């Protein structure tokens, strides 16, 4: 039986890596990948905590929900990034300034 702390540590490491990618990457797709990492970290936490609810399995159900939602979000995000690229020929979010006040 793997103790809970290991899940949490892996989740924290994943989250941190995702966070790092979001903050430092210059490519929108890489940032999106960072976000995916953070989502996965949170799913891992949900599933890990889910062992304390053996009656309703709320953690697992939430995990499934999040995976579906993340897939949908990735689809939308990728479309946005593609349109962005069509319009300004770049996927660096720091270069897209046309909406800046």
């Amino acid at each position, binding site marked *: 039986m793997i103790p809970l702390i290991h899940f949490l540590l892996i989740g924290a490491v994943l989250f941190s890596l995702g966070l790092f990618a*979001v903050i430092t990457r210059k490519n929108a797709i890489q940032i999106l990948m960072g976000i995916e990492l953070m989502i996965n970290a949170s799913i891992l936490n949900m599933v890990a905590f889910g062992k304390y609810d053996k009656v309703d399995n709320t953690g697992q159900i939430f995990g499934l929900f999040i995976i579906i939602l993340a897939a949908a979000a990735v689809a939308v995000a990728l479309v946005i990034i593609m349109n962005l690229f069509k319009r300004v020929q770049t996927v660096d979010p720091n270069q897209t300034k046309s909406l800046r006040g």
Partner: protein
Amino acid sequence: MESIFTNYEILCIALTAITAPFLAFILSLIFKKLASVFGLTSISISLVSSAILFFTVWQSQTFHFAFEWIKLANVSINIGILLNDLSVVMMLLVSFVALLVHIYSVEYIRKEALKYRYFSYLSLFCFAMLCVVIADNLFLLYAFWELVGFASYLLIGFWFTKRKAIQANKKAFIMNRVGDVGFLIGLMILLSQFHTLDIETLFGAKGIIHSSFVQNGVWVSPFSTMPDYWLSIAGFSFLIGAAGKSAQFPLHSWLPDAMQGPTAVSSLIHAATMVAAGVFLLLRVSPLFNELVLTSMASIGLFTAFMAATIALTQNDIKKVLAFSTISQLGFMVLAVGVGDNAAAIFHLSTHAFFKCLLFLAAGMVIHQLHHVKQYSSSKFDEQDMRNMGGLVKLMPVTATVFIIAALALSGLPFTSGYLSKDAILISVFEWAGAHGGVYWVFPVLISVTSWLTTFYIFRVIFKVFFGDFKLPFVLNKKLEDLHLNDPNQWMKIPAIILAVCCFAFVFALNPFSLNSTWLYQVFNLKPHSESLLHLFVPLYINVLSIVLIVAAYFIYAKNKIIFTNQKAWYYQLSYNQWYFYQLYDRKLVSLVLWKAKVSLWFDKKIIDGIVHSSAKGTLLVSKLTDWVDKYIIDGFVNGLASWVGSLSTWFKSMQSGKLQHYFVWMLFIFLSFMIYKVII
């Protein structure tokens, strides 16, 4: 006698008499071309109204209309009209003489560019003078008294481009002010003592002045009491007021200067009417005077009469002689009031108005014609200087005749009005001196001498102007025929002839030798003269010597046979320099005033300006200090705050980098801070 008019109609007639000239005054200023028509018409209306009033009021009834004007506590001042014997006589006199002068003026100033002003001012004067005469209270009288002074000021300065005329009208105005202050003080004393200024209530037959008395050094009236010297002060105040207007010593020196005005003005204002207003005032308030004031008044009148007569002896300017003669004759009137013979003063005032007005008009005719000569021959000479005249009787017979008639009246020779009026004064002075005795005999002696001097100086004028040789042709080096000198036309001659008729005694008395048959004298005379030897003796010795003097003057001035004056002698110089009053007033008084002005200028410049300047400097210093505080403290604080906000905003601005990831970092940072904060607390 029952009047044919109702009270209301009388009021309307009186108002017509005074408003007609006032309307003419305004209309003349608007319709400039018709000025002389307005002037003549209005004064004719006044004359007719005055005549109606005269025949209604004279010796029958007194009308008094009053409407409340100003009410202060328990004192009310009315605006109203008092028509008694004195007012209607004066009204008739003023409007009659004024009408004649208006007619005369039409010709006299025909060539003036600004003649509408002349007629308008003349109408203003007539309005004011008629109002003075019929005002029912002293306050109203005072107001119009000022207005006649103002009209006189305007008319003296009619030729306002002449520097002398401007100085003369200024002088007249200022000297009149001195007198007016006296009048005003008198008014205030009367107001505080009697609580009214109504002439009828104060001085009428049942006036409250008669119920006031002096007891134990206190002047008691029904309303109030004050120390008795205030009675004398009140009397003296009115005396000063009258002296200012009637050109009595020491306020006489404006009148000779006033001769700078047109001669017609001199004849109306400065001979016949306005200067008589002073005497009129004395007559109005005469019950007020006590023994001290009356004696002073008599002395002033005597001194003025004598002084002015001596000055008139040596003047070369024809109008100056007449001016001093006027002063002298006004002195006679003041003397008459002083010795208590008001009737003689009124009578002499009336007769003097006629003959002195005529003298001026005749002199004006000479001056006017000589002025024409001056213009035609385009030469320069003084048309008023008698040294340029002589022998004019042949050239200007009408002028000479009327002048001689007026001169006879002035000298008081028989069959003239002057004979009656002047002898009335002389007899009264004799009786008065007889009653007092002692040193009072100076009065009749000096006044007799003055009377002889009067004869002498006026005949000096006649012989210098109308007889002897005409000097002007020699002065100008021209022939007599080239000068075209003759009598003026009808406009000037007819008024003069009418006045000449009025100089005869029969206008005033059926018997030209009897004072008791003189209607004008008897009405006002309260105490009939005793039929003493004086009535025979005084006229006799005055006239006999007068005739001797006329003959002497003829030989001195017409024939140049006797030369008895030494022009360097002190008495000649004293007279010629007008007793040095000019020098005294101009040098001493005026320089005193100028010195005072300089002192106040210095005070103003150094002290007042110094205070102002130093306070300005102080203010400047304070303002500089405030400026510094404002700049560095207040502005510094505000600016500092602003720059602090600016730098803060720059710092905040730096957060808004527009970079997505920066925002994200910030978000994370704030979220983590919040979390840490929550954990720690």
